C-alpha cells in the first residue's frame, strides 16, 4: 500500500474513535415555522383526548411496529406521542371545532420539505443520512410519497403500497414497463426490489446507487466479476451498464443490444471483427452471429486470469 493510501486509511479509522466522545446538542423542530398559530403552544402531555376524535387513526397507528418501537424506546404516551409529528396540541385541544384545523400541524397543508423534516427528527441517520441534497429531495419528493405510518399497508418498511416496486413505479413508469421485458432480473418474481441496488434516500452512487459506483453496486451480488484479474476488459471494469440494462432488456442477459452488434460498437478493426453480419450470415450458418455470437468464443468477456487469456477466450 502506498504511503498516501496508508495515510488515508489511518484517518478513516481514527475519526470515528474520536467522535463518539463528542456530546451533540439536540435540536427539535420549530413548529411555529410550520404553523404560526403554534407559537408558544403548550404540550398536551399524556392527555388521551386525541382519541376522542381520532380514535380509528390512533388505534391503527398503535398496531404498527413503528409505533410500538417508538413507544418502547421513548416511553411517550397519549397526546405527547401524537405531538412528535403534529406539534404541540395544547391550543388544538382548547380550540373550538371550527378553529381546530388551524391549531395543529396537519400533513395535508405543509410543504414537502416540512413533511420530511418532521420524519428526519428521528430518521436523519443511517440510510437517510444523505437525504438532504439527494435527487429525490431536490425533486420535492417527501417521506409520505412512499411511506405511510398511520396503518400497516406493507409487511416491512411502512410503504404506501404492499409491493415496494409499485411505490417506485408511481413515478418511474418506464421502469415498470422495462421489468416486464423478456430478459430481466427477478424483480417481478419478488426476489429483488428497487432498493436492492438503489438507496432512494440518497445513495452515493450514480442514480442513487447504494454504493459509490455502478460496478461496486453490481459486485454486491456478482462478486465473481470483481476480480481483479490479469486481463481486464476496460468498459467492464469501468461500468457494467456500458453493456447491460439492469432494468430489463430484449437481449439476454439484459444486454443493451444484441451481440455481435453490441461488441461492434467498439470493435470495428482487424480480423473477423468488423465484418458485416447480415441476413446472409444466417443462411450461411455463421457462428459469429448465431448462438451466443461473439461469446461463443470470447466467453471470458468480463476478464480472464488465464495467462493465455488476452483475447478473453480462456
Amino acid at each position, binding site marked *: 500500500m502506498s504511503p498516501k493510501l496508508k495515510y488515508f486509511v489511518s484517518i478513516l479509522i481514527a475519526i470515528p474513535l474520536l467522535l463518539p466522545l463528542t456530546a451533540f446538542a439536540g435540536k427539535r423542530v420549530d413548529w411555529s415555522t410550520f404553523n404560526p398559530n403554534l407559537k408558544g403552544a403548550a404540550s398536551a402531555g399524556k392527555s388521551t383526548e386525541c382519541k376522542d376524535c381520532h380514535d380509528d387513526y390512533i388505534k391503527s397507528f398503535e398496531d404498527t411496529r413503528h409505533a410500538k418501537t417508538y413507544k418502547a424506546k421513548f416511553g411517550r404516551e397519549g397526546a405527547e406521542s401524537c405531538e412528535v409529528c403534529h406539534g404541540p396540541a395544547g391550543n388544538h385541544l382548547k380550540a373550538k371545532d371550527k378553529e381546530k384545523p388551524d391549531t395543529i400541524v396537519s400533513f395535508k397543508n405543509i410543504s414537502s420539505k416540512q413533511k420530511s423534516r418532521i420524519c428526519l427528527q428521528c430518521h436523519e441517520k443511517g440510510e437517510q443520512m444523505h437525504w438532504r441534497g439527494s435527487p429525490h429531495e431536490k425533486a420535492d419528493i417527501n417521506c409520505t410519497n412512499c411511506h405511510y405510518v398511520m396503518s400497516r399497508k406493507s409487511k416491512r418498511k411502512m410503504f404506501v403500497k404492499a409491493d415496494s416496486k409499485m411505490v417506485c413505479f408511481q413515478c418511474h413508469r418506464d421502469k415498470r414497463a422495462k421489468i416486464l421485458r423478456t430478459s430481466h432480473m427477478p424483480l417481478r418474481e419478488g426476489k429483488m426490489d428497487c432498493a436492492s441496488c438503489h438507496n432512494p434516500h440518497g445513495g452515493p452512487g450514480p442514480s442513487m446507487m447504494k454504493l459509490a459506483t455502478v460496478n461496486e453496486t453490481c459486485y454486491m451480488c456478482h462478486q465473481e466479476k470483481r*476480480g481483479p484479474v490479469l486481463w481486464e476488459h476496460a468498459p467492464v471494469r469501468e461500468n457494467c451498464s456500458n453493456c447491460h440494462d439492469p432494468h430489463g432488456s430484449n437481449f439476454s442477459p439484459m444486454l443493451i443490444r444484441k451481440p455481435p452488434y453490441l461488441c461492434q460498437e467498439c470493435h470495428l478493426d482487424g480480423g473477423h471483427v468488423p465484418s458485416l453480419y*447480415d441476413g446472409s450470415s*444466417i443462411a450461411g450458418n455463421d457462428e459469429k452471429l448465431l448462438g451466443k455470437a461473439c461469446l461463443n468464443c470470447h466467453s471470458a468477456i468480463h476478464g480472464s486470469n488465464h495467462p493465455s487469456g488476452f483475447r478473453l*477466450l480462456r
Partner: protein
Amino acid sequence: MKHTQKNHLSGRFHFALVPALLLLGALASPAYSEDKDKRMAEEDGVSGTFSIGAGGVGLDRDSFKFGEYSGLEKGDGIFVGDADIAYNRKSYYMNFFSTNLGLENRSIYLESGKRGDYNFFAGFDQTPHLLSNNSQTVYHGTGTSNLTLPSSFTAGGQTTNMTILERNSLELQTERDTATFGFFKSFGENDFTVTYKREDKDGIRPLGMSFNQRSVIIPETLDQDVNELSMTFAHNGEDRQIKFQYFLSLFDNRVEALKVDGPFTGQASVGLISRAPDNRYHRLSLSGGWNLGETTRISGMAEYGVMLQDDNFFPYATIAHTARLPRNSADARIHTTHVMFNVDSRPIPELSLNAKYKHYQTINDIQRTLLIPVSVDNTLRADDSAQAHYNTPLAYAQDNLQLDTSYRVFKATTLKLGYEGDLWNRSFREAETTMENTFKAGLRSNYFSFASTNLKFSYGRKIQDKNDMAQTFRNLHSPNYLSANPEGSDSNPNLVRVDVKNRERINVGGNINFTPIGNFAAGVSYNLREDDYGHGLGVEYVNNQNATLDVNYTPSDRVSYYGFYTYGRQRLEQAGAESVTDATRDYWRDENDVSHTFGVGANGRLLKNKLDLSTEYTYTQSVTDITFTHGGAAVAGDPTALPDLANQRHRFEFKGDYKYTPKISVGLKYIAEVYRDDNFATDGFDPASNNIADLLLLDGSEQDYTAHLALVFLTYKIGN
C-alpha cells in the same frame, strides 16, 4: 484444481437453517419476566396471518421460461406456505415472515429482540434461475470440471464431419442460497450492527469454449460461495450523525477451470478454460452529516477499499509450458478511494442551493508483464509474435461536481437550474481524459389543485482529449514486435470506442398528473435521451424515448380500476468499417427497437367487506428491427436485412379472498400466460447437432409456452 459435483452443501444448509432460526428467536425473545414495563402489556401475544394451500402448473410444452425465477416446470405441484407473524411481550418482540415456502424461490426472515434496544435477525433466501430444459451435450462429465467425449464420438474438422451417436440431455439451471445473520444493539444515541452473509451459488450453465475459429458450448459447472461480514458503528445525534463501517467479502470458486476434450480435428485435443478466480475485498467507510441550523446541512463520505486476487496461474495450456510463466500469480490488487462532499442550504424559504463533489479513483497495482501465450491450447507463440501481450493495469479517476439551485417563483411553482461537470482520467486507454459538461433546467408546478406538472431539460457535451489508438496498440506489444509492426489490429485511428467518444446529449422529460374530479386521475409522462456522436467509424446516433399514459378510476372506496400503456423506442445508427479498404465491410447499420406495454386491472371489496377481488391483464411486445445499407463503396451484393427479433407475453391474473369467518378466509389465485419468442440466433438450430458448421450448440431454442397456474389456500388470522 478443485471441483465438486453439483454442490449439495446448500441442501444440508436448508435443514440446518430452520431450527437455527427458531433457536435464535427463542434465545432473543424470552427472559423478560423481570421487566415490569406495563406500557406494552395491552399488545402482548401473537398476531398475524399464515396461509396454507396447494396448486399446480400446466404448461403446453417443456419450456423453462415461465418458471425462470420460480423454478416451476411443466406439471409441478405447489404447496402454499406463507406467514406474517408477530409475537409481542412487553417491549420484547419476535417477527417472522415467510414467502413461497412451497416453491424453489422461498424466503424466510426472523427478527427478535427488545424494541429500541437490541435485536437479532436471520434470513434465508433461495433464488433459482432456469436457463433451459431441452439442452443436449455430446460430453460426459456434466457437473464436474472435466468434460470428456465418449468413445462413440468421432471428431471432425467441422460439425458436419463429426459422428455424434450419443447426446446427453440436461437441464441448465443455477441457484443462489443466501443466509443472513445479524445483531443490532443501541447505546443511546449510538448503535452497533454486525451482519454475516453466506451465499452459495451452484448449478449448470452454458459457456462458450473456443477451439480456434471453432466453438462448442459446454455445460459449465457452477460451484461458488461467498462469505461477507459487515460491522457498522453509528452515532446518531440530532444535529450530527456519523457512521463507520467495515465490510469484508470473500469469494471462493470451487471450479477454477474446466478441462474440455476438443471435438474438432486440426485443433487442440484438450482445452483448458479458466473461471473466475477466488478474490477478497475489504472496504472501510466513514460517512457523516451535520446540520448547521435549520437551513444548512453538510454531509460527506470517505471510503477506502481494496480488491485482492492471488490465485495461482494455470499453465499456458493443458500441455506444459509452465516454465514460460513470468510469475506464479497475477498478485492483483486494485485500491479504490471515494470521497463525497455535499452542502445543501435554504438561505430563504423560496431558494434552495446544493453543491456536491465526488472523487472516485481506482489504483491498479498489478505488475505489468509480457505474457507469451499458447493460443487456444495448441499454438506456442514467440516473444515477438502478435499474440505476446503486456497486461495493462487499467485504472481511472472520476471527479464529478454538481451545482443545483431551485427557486419558488410563485405559488407552488419552482424553477430549477443546474450544472454537472464530469471528468474522467484513465490509464492505458486511447483517450486519457474525457470531460462532460451538462447544463440542466426544470420546472415543477402544483399551481392548479387538479394538476401537477414537472418538466426537465438538459444538454451535455462530452469531449475527449485525444484518441490515440496507436498508443493502446503500443501498450500491448513487445518492442521487438513493434519495431517490425508499428501498426496493427485495433489501431485504426478512425476508430473511437463508444464509451469514450465525443458526444452531445440532450435529455427532455416531463409528466403531467391530472385529477379533474376526485375519483379519477390520469398521468402522462415522456422521456427522451438523444446521443449524437458525430460522423465517423462506429456509433453515430442513439435515440431513446418512452411515453406512458396512466389512468385510475375509483368510483367508491371499495372498487378501483386502473390502466396503463407505455411506448418505448430505441433507435441507433452505426457506420460500419467504412474506412477500411475492404468494400465488403463498408456498410451502415440501423437498429430500431420498439416496445409496447399495456395493462388494465381492477380491485374490489364486496359483500360487506367479506370478499376481496383483484384482476389484472398485461401485454408486452418488443420488436427489434436491424437493417443494413451499403456505404460509399458498394459491398459485394447489397446487405440483407435480418429477421425481426420479437417477443410478446400476455398475462392474466385473478385473485379472490373470501372471509369465511373473522379468523379464516379462503383464497383463490389463477394465472394464465402466453409467451412467444422469435430469435434468429437460436430458432431452428438443434443442440449438439451439425446445424452450424463451426459451432456445437448446447441449449435448445424452445422458450414459447402457454401456462396456467391455479392455487387454493386458507388464511388463518391470529390475534385480533
